[in-house]
């Protein structure tokens, strides 16, 4: 199947740097920020954004992981999913501005599950959403606050996000569909 590269390593790096700046701007600084990545690649992206935040404003790059498997609405429609660990930074999320980080925003159902999961962990002051790619086709009234790249796509196309930590290279490609 033919795969077309839409973001390369430098593009991803630039997008994450921009997102980090936007987060600081929207938050009026780096205080009380918590970045929670959604496994698997969202966690890696959250850590990268966290590192950039830390270099811009020391102390602002608190990151963690938020697994949403147990909150999904499609558990009985798919093969059994194995959850990943959730790790909330020391200090919790009460009163903090939580930025959820994921690789691709699609139907919005993962984020819906994440909001439910967050609700059981505490009461953040605000919740924002940062994604590397927004590919459209929302099924719920959810939108991202910080977007790396808007990538209008057909429903039968596949967006693959590859990150060096898990896949050996940084790459976003689009495949399938009618070429």
């Amino acid at each position, binding site marked *: 199947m033919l795969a077309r590269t839409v973001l390369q390593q430098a593009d991803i790096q630039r997008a994450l740097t921009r997102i980090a700046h936007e987060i600081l701007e929207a938050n009026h600084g780096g205080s009380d920020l918590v970045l929670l990545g959604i496994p698997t690649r969202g966690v890696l992206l959250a850590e990268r954004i966290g590192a950039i935040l830390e270099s811009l404003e020391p102390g602002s790059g608190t990151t963690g992981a938020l*697994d949403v498997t*147990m*909150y999904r609405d499609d*558990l*009985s*429609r*798919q*093969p*059994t*999913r*194995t*959850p*990943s*660990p*959730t790790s909330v930074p020391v200090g919790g999320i009460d009163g903090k501005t939580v930025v959820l980080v994921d690789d691709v925003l699609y139907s919005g159902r993962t984020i819906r599950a994440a909001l*439910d999961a967050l*609700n*059981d*962990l*505490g009461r953040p002051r605000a919740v924002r959403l940062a994604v590397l790619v927004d590919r459209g086709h929302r099924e719920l009234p959810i939108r991202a606050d910080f977007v790396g790249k808007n990538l209008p796509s057909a429903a039968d196309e596949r967006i693959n996000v590859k990150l060096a930590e898990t896949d050996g290279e940084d790459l976003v490609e689009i495949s399938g569909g009618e070429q």
Partner: protein
Amino acid sequence: MKHLLSVRDLDRAAAIGILDLAEDMADVATRAVPKLPTLRGRTVANLFFEDSTRTRLSFEAAAKRLSADVITFSAKGSSVSKGESLKDTAQTIAAMGVDAVVLRHGSSGAARVLADSGWIDAAVVNAGDGTHEHPTQGLLDSYTMRKTLHGAASRGRDLEGVRVTIVGDILHSRVARSNVWLLRTLGASVHLVAPETLLPTGVDTWPVTTSTNLDAALAEAPDVVMMLRIQSERMHAAFFPHEREYARQWGLDDGRFAKLGEDTMIMHPGPMNRGLEISARAADSQQSVILQQVTNGVSIRMAVLYLVLSGENS
């Protein structure tokens, strides 16, 4: 996973997968809302044909933390005392709309029969069948060992090289059987200590070593000592002359406890006969993990219920 009937159906990767999943479930208990919506709308039936307190409560707590509905059936004072069979009882419960059945039964193999017979569609979890197996107990024991040895770094690890000594009524113990097979799968080595009369025939075909001398076995400084309950309800023959003699030869009394290493884990599946197979001092000591076993049991059962009740075939 459609059913959980025996730990022998699990390979090492699957067993570690369940233990890792239980780690996630244990984290839930520490949160502001210790509950997950995962099994909302699912019904779990506890079918207990034998007396049980902790296993039944543990399964009940696990199901409720996953937001499943629970109905409980215990044989005492039920239609079973009027002569109803396992098949009819199970079909009656299933007709009420049940997604999973947690079965405790006095006959070895009862859970397998229920799962394979086609009487019901529900997932079957074996919660102890006769003297055959008690898979969730085996899993929670391995989980407790791994957690005590490796703490927060437990995820993904097996029990390679851990030496476990299991003491007591091996003959009637489903807990011992589930532990033997699962511990071997996870790489631990198992030594059994019991009076000759309480070792099953054919134990020489098990992947274990056996002996009858507890003092000699403890002198080997095992990492884990697991004391089994003397099950008076199954003692229908004279397996040993007198309880006092059993306690003196095979009980973990104060004298034997004092000689144990400081980091030797002491385990017991409960309920304990204090003063018979284990002394109060040993049971309440720092190195006893008996209460952790109970806590971990809920996490393990949450993991098992999640695995049998999620997925497209459920």
